[in-house]
């Protein structure tokens, strides 16, 4: 099954049912499919061919969904980008995948001017609004025209299930972005598996506050388009009480978040005043959530099923889940493999570990990515004969439940973001009065982890200039909260920075101050 068949099947089964809802606006499956067809036909008229890449630069919205399915229906590959990225990230990722076109909303129009010179492959922009600085040799089509006018019939494009449907960029451990290439088959396998274990039905309505450009948000969208449910989109989680009101008004049955989502809800909202009569379940993924926070959610929402889940973008999203009725008994566990996935814990020699022994999680199944876009060497490092080497170290208990012990890579999880310290260190190294630096994640009550930079200075550092340099070159969420100047960094004999030691040093300092 192809990913856009989700939409096509439900446009036939439930033509007048709400597919998506946003700020009071609604779109039915029938309307959504017609708009996606029109956009697809527009893209084909603009010269898009099978396998071309088209970037989406917009926040989660009904328009994003139309763009997503329009691109797929044209036989092209969706590249949804983090709208909060710094200019150099946009430039690097879009150049990496050589996009032919961009679909953008009004907030992102200014980006085109900044990145255009680095993108010789860019032929057109489908834009929500006019903008005086679009380069002259790029064709500009208005989004509204593309969605409302033109041919609403399904384009006849031959697409195979092994064709790549989507590239999701993640921060690589080397600091340069890696494009996780997912086929229609990958996304279908993962979507149908999630729908099965969450028991999603056409009556389900999910509150979508997570951005669609990350794999977790993407899976919320796809699972509901697949089961014929509805996606209630709202990007105002900055004000959690608004989201709680919307959840009640729209009678949502599901809510999904990362640990920081739940920390904000429990500590910074009026959640205690709500009863959530229609809410059936919540899901949590995107990094480990503390058992204390899990217990707090159970106290506040005693009648709601809580699914703790684990996954990676490289696995289309999901790899394991813990059944809600095992939550207390197996607290701290990420559960067992989802349907259609096999997870094994292996030691460094490739031997399967016994219960209690720590090894790496190896995953196999139809949901495992095709590879990293144009990076065969990086792909080989993680995709091996026995499956995806996740880099996460775990052990199982006697009943086969998995417990993450540590993550082998140095990636930092802050809020909903997965951040490479290397990328930040590279930007810090470009600053003249810094000899070297190390960025670590330290525990944070709301974010899970927040960023701290240890810096070895060369003379005096002008902090104002340093912050300016970081703002120009990094997304806001990648800018360290704190800078600590040190004479040297602790290193192993092979010269690798002992990040663990820095984390301990920071914790000690926090305790004594």
């Amino acid at each position, binding site marked *: 099954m192809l990913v856009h068949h989700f939409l096509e099947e439900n446009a036939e089964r439930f033509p007048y049912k709400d597919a998506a809802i946003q700020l009071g606006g609604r779109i039915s499956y029938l309307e959504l499919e017609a708009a996606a067809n029109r956009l697809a036909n527009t893209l084909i008229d603009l010269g898009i061919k099978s396998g071309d890449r088209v970037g989406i630069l917009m*926040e989660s919205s009904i328009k994003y969904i139309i763009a997503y399915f329009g691109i797929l229906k044209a036989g092209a590959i969706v590249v949804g980008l983090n*709208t*909060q990225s*710094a*200019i150099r990230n946009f430039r690097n990722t879009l150049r990496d995948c050589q996009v032919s076109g961009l679909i953008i909303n009004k*907030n*992102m129009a*200014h980006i085109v001017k900044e990145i255009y010179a680095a993108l010789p492959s860019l032929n057109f922009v489908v834009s929500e609004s006019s903008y005086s600085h679009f380069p002259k040799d790029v064709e500009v089509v208005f989004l509204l025209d593309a969605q409302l006018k033109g041919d609403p019939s399904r384009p006849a494009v031959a697409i195979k299930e092994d064709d790549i449907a989507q590239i999701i960029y993640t921060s690589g451990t080397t600091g340069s972005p890696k494009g996780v290439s997912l086929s229609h088959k990958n996304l279908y396998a993962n979507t149908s598996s999630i729908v099965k274990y969450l028991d999603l039905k056409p009556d389900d309505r999910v509150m979508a506050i997570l951005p669609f450009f990350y794999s977790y948000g993407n899976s919320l969208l796809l699972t509901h388009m697949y089961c014929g449910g509805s996606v209630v989109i709202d*990007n*105002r*989680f*900055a*004000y*959690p*009480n*608004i989201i709680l009101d919307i959840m009640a008004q729209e009678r949502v049955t599901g809510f999904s978040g990362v640990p*920081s*989502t739940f920390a*904000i809800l429990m500590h*910074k*909202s*009026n959640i205690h005043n709500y009863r959530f009569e229609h809410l059936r379940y919540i899901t949590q993924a995107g990094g480990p959530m503390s058992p204390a926070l899990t217990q707090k959610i159970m106290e506040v929402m005693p009648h709601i099923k809580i699914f703790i889940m684990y996954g990676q973008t490289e696995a289309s999203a999901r790899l394991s889940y813990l059944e809600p009725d095992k939550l207390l008994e197996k607290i701290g566990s990420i559960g067992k493999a989802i349907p259609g996935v096999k997870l094994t814990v292996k030691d460094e020699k490739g031997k399967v570990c016994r219960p209690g022994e720590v090894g790496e999680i190896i995953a196999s199944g139809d949901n495992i990515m095709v590879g990293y876009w144009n990076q065969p060497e990086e792909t080989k490092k993680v995709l091996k004969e026995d499956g995806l080497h996740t880099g996460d170290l775990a052990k199982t208990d006697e009943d086969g439940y998995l417990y993450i012990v540590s993550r082998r890579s140095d990636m930092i999880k802050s*809020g909903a973001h997965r951040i490479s310290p290397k990328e930040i260190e590279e930007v810090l190294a470009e600053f003249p009065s810094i000899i070297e630096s190390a960025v670590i994640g330290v525990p944070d009550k*709301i*974010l899970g982890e927040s960023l701290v930079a240890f810096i070895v200075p060369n003379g005096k550092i002008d902090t104002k200039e340093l*912050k300016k340099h970081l*703002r*120009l070159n*990094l*997304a*806001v*969420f990648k800018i360290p909260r704190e800078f600590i100047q040190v004479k040297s960094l602790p290193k192993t004999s092979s010269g690798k920075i002992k990040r663990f030691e820095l984390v301990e040093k920071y914790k000690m300092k926090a305790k004594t101050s």
Partner: protein
Amino acid sequence: MEIAQQINNFIIDNFMMGRSPEELTEDDSLLEKGIIDSTGVLELVSFIEETYGFTVEDDELVPENLDSVNKLVNYINRKRQH
């Protein structure tokens, strides 16, 4: 420095990531312009609490109080009068 100027500087310094300061007018919605997200709001709240010496209550965490420079200035002035 005036409150509006302080707030403006904080937002430009922390959330505008290389965007031109002219893009922000005093009535612009910080959310709709894509300037601030959920953790950004919490940073803004910490800044207000530290700078102006009062606590932002959970039920005050609403766009009517925080979503533009002008709304922030009005909110801070109201709180300081109490």
